[in-house]
């Protein structure tokens, strides 16, 4: 959702002092809209590329302001209790303006490149002292690659380190267009087996793996990541396959580097899934299918890490 002429894009969150999205102290900008539907996604409010109304009933004081504000009559107040009829909601956000209790909130705000860059710039001194910078995340930042590129370029102009977090499911040209302004790419590989990938995310992984290969052939520092989810990809076999693929990519990069000197790093990270997003799903009126999934025990995570390392790659579990 972007007006190409206006240079705006849909941002659903800006997190300052973000310390797990790349080196140093960073600001992570979350762009709204994603093509995968990973059922464990911990940013469900970033999935759709349009603004959405979120409702937090525990904050509601039943003042009734939203009832009169909504042109679609999506709010009702009966016997002092407010109900949100989400199916009627068209996301105008008129109710949000009137809800001082902040029980209604919009996810997704149109921002200009300059607005985003200014917010990012606020923490400049912290990036300088810590070797940090800006990370574009989502959602999927390549979905609105022109907006993403404009932010990255503006940040680079201001001398900041730039990173993106991508699921990799995008035309190569979108990803490629960002590389000149990107200092680090963090990309998910959720599964090697197409069937598992399709089951878990709604799409196959052919394009993702191909994009991973192209990235390996570029010169950008790379971190591949696997969110390890119980019953999806927590097997030695699956992680072993991913790790082998990454080793292959590292070898490719090594060979391609040849005359250019030392190849830039390729790392692998295993992220432990945590069941943290239930409130978010509730606020969006969506079902959280991962609600009954337990995190993979730490011991097993270490076993998987061992497997990845045995494949001969630089792997770790961050935090």
């Amino acid at each position, binding site marked *: 959702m972007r007006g190409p002429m206006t240079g705006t894009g849909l941002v659903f969150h800006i997190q300052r002092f973000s310390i797990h999205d790349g080196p140093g*102290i960073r600001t992570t900008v979350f762009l709204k809209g994603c093509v995968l539907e990973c059922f464990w996604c911990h940013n469900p409010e970033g999935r759709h590329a349009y603004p959405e109304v979120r409702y937090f009933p525990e904050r509601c004081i039943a003042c009734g302001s939203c009832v009169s504000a909504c042109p679609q009559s999506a709010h009702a107040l009966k016997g002092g209790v407010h109900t949100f009829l989400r199916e009627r909601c068209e996301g105008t956000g008129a109710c949000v303006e009137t809800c001082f209790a902040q029980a209604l909130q919009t996810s997704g705000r149109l921002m200009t490149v300059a607005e985003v860059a200014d917010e990012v710039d606020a923490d400049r001194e912290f990036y300088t002292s*810590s070797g940090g910078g800006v990370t574009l995340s989502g959602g999927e930042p390549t979905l609105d690659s022109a907006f993403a590129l404009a932010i990255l370029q503006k940040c680079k102009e201001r001398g900041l380190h730039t990173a993106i977090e991508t699921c990799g499911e995008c035309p190569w040209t979108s990803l490629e267009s960002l590389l000149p302004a990107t200092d680090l790419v963090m990309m998910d590989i959720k599964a090697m087996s197409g069937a598992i990938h399709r089951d878990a995310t709604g799409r196959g992984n052919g394009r993702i793996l191909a994009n991973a290969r192209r990235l390996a052939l570029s010169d950008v520092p790379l971190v591949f990541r696997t969110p390890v989810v119980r019953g999806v990809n927590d097997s030695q076999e699956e992680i072993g396959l991913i790790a082998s693929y990454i080793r292959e990519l590292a070898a490719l990069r090594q060979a391609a580097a040849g005359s250019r000197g030392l190849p830039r790093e390729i790392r692998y990270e295993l992220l432990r899934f945590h069941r943290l997003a239930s409130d978010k799903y509730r606020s969006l009126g969506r079902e959280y299918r991962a609600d009954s999934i337990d995190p993979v025990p730490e011991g097993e995570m270490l076993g998987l890490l061992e497997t990845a390392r045995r494949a001969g790659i630089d792997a770790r579990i961050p935090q």
Partner: protein
Amino acid sequence: MSDDTAGRELTFTERIAMLRATKMRHTEEKWRVLGSMDMDDLPVILPPPESRKVVRIVSGSGLLMTDALFSGFTPKSNHPSGGIFGARACGENIRSLMELHPTYVDPVSSLAGAYIAHFISYRSPGWNPDFDYSHLQGEQEKYRLHHGIGAVQHFCQDMTIGFELGWGGILEKIRRFRDVNTDDEAQELYDGLEHMVLGFQNWIGRHGAAARTMAETEENAQRRRNLLEIAEINTRLVTDPPRTFREACQWMLWYQLAGKMYNMGGSLGRIDQFLYPFYRRDIGEGTLTDEEATFHLACHFVMDTSYTQLGGPDAAGRDTTNRLSFLMLEAAHMLKVPVNVGVSVGREVDPRLLSRSVEILFEDRTGIPKFLGVDRTSEGFARNGYPIALGRERAYSGCHWCAIPGREYTMNDCVKVNFAAVFDVALHEMMSGPGIVPGVEDLWSRFERHLRRSVEVVAESVDFHMDHMYRVFPELHLDLLCHGPIEKGRDASHGGVEFYNLCVDGAGLATVADSFAALEQRIGREGRLSWQELIRLIDGDWPGAGGEKARLMMKNIPRYGSGGSRADAYGLSIARAFTSIVRSRKTPHGFNMIPGIFSWAATIAMGKDVGATPNGRRAREPISHGPNPDPGFRRDAAPTALALAVASVQPGYGNTAPMQIEFDPGLSRSSEDMRKVADLIRTHFELGGTQINMNILDRKAVLEAHRDPATHPDLVVRVTGFSAYFASLSPEMRQVVVNRIIAED
């Protein structure tokens, strides 16, 4: 040293664990008898039940508290009011308390001594009614000022004076100068000081004897040896200065305990510097190991949680971190009791000291240590017209404050202007005047005018204090180790020391900044309510169904701390106005005043003084904390945004506006993450920040302990400048701590 280990020597680590358990037992007994206490962990031990009397008193920091008196001591009043006033009477009484004080020797500790009563709690009335300040009281009341009249201690001695002279030398010095300064004021002061020293000598000497008696019947060889050493050391220390590291720790402990006993004093300052010569010599001679030195320090800190600075610049700006700085950290780490250790983080900071500090902070989750922006405070101090070397000498020695050891009288943390109360006066004045058209600009100019007047009232009040304090409750204890009081025959509060830089703190910055911004937005720009409606809502404390909606409307605006908001701009304007008013002139008697922004634990008491405010705060709720934004100031609760806001409102004259910050322990488990936290600390100071109180709060534990303190009796939190057992806090103060963490949801 329990019986099951009677057969072998206990390790230092085992002994520290036992000392910690003993302290926990004493602390739990105090909770049972005295209830909650929203202040520093006072390491006082309760008097035995048969000689214990529970009373309500005003603490050394002006806070109402419950205390236990030792009924073995009956004070002698010298005034019809029943009070005890002046150097002679105070000296006589403290001497008698020390002489009657039961001995305390724990065979596990390497140091003797504990104290069981606060002399200040026997002094009622605290102020001599002959010195009437009713002419000031009207306005003090009007602005709800913490005016400082009668405030005690809150400056720092120079411990090296005691280390050089010992009690014998100090006594001799007093007697020598008694013949030089023969005026009445000096003679009375010398009487008081002499009584105090004689009290010290009796108290210490009896511990030597007690330890020797205990040794006679002690069967455990390690304990017997320890007791005999204690006996020997304390027999010497009655007159002689300390020779070894252990003796220096013992000397320092006596001094500190007496300070607590006399007027709840407790500044330590740069302990890693003044103990270092003893440490180096003993290590050189092979009579001390690092492990043993850490143990002696732990034995001190378990009995005295006073404020200390580690590292920091010397006069030339070079970092002074030494081996002892690290051992101090380790002692606090092993003890895990509320020790108030501040780590200096200047340009030259030893990166290992900083990284070890952050590590301990995350591992222990006790809010220990805290961090000091020593470059900023020394540069700021120089802006008062002093050489920067003097600023560097200023030692961290209290909640949020520094003082030049032995040379500066400060009244730090004792004088507070409650911005919210001043704002309230301005708002009601505007709304009650006939024919006034209310507006935000008009309100601002009234606020500024009342702010100026409240600072003037403070200035007149501290002058009054300085005129009379020496005849009310002189600083006998600190005078002993200051440069000047003995030499001149003048109490430190009455010209005894070289420098007078009186602290004037503002409090409630965010409350008022957000109030201005809310009025400007909701009444001014959006026209959602009228001034008349607003005042009705405020005076009625947001009454009725519409009240809550209006309250939330006023509350949920871009707040101070969010960055670039109108409230941020107001925060800055308030800080600047306050700073320039305080700096614009000296007190009528010519004392320099230094502005800071800090509310201490008084954030609760000050809140009780003020009705509802336009930022959506309910009547009598706590005001905002120091220069901090209110919890919930940003949805991402970004520590960088907090650090920028707090750095932007620094008054900048050497006194602090500390940043209070809480982290979830889940934030950081790797050394890489801890480095980022260290980077945050350094950057805040580079941006102008002066002090950081950082908590790593385990939210589950805190929430459980809030429901039932007994579930986590040893949970330690950094409440504000001080750290304390969470369970010892009042339910209201616990709520303040809890709000800080739940607002981050």
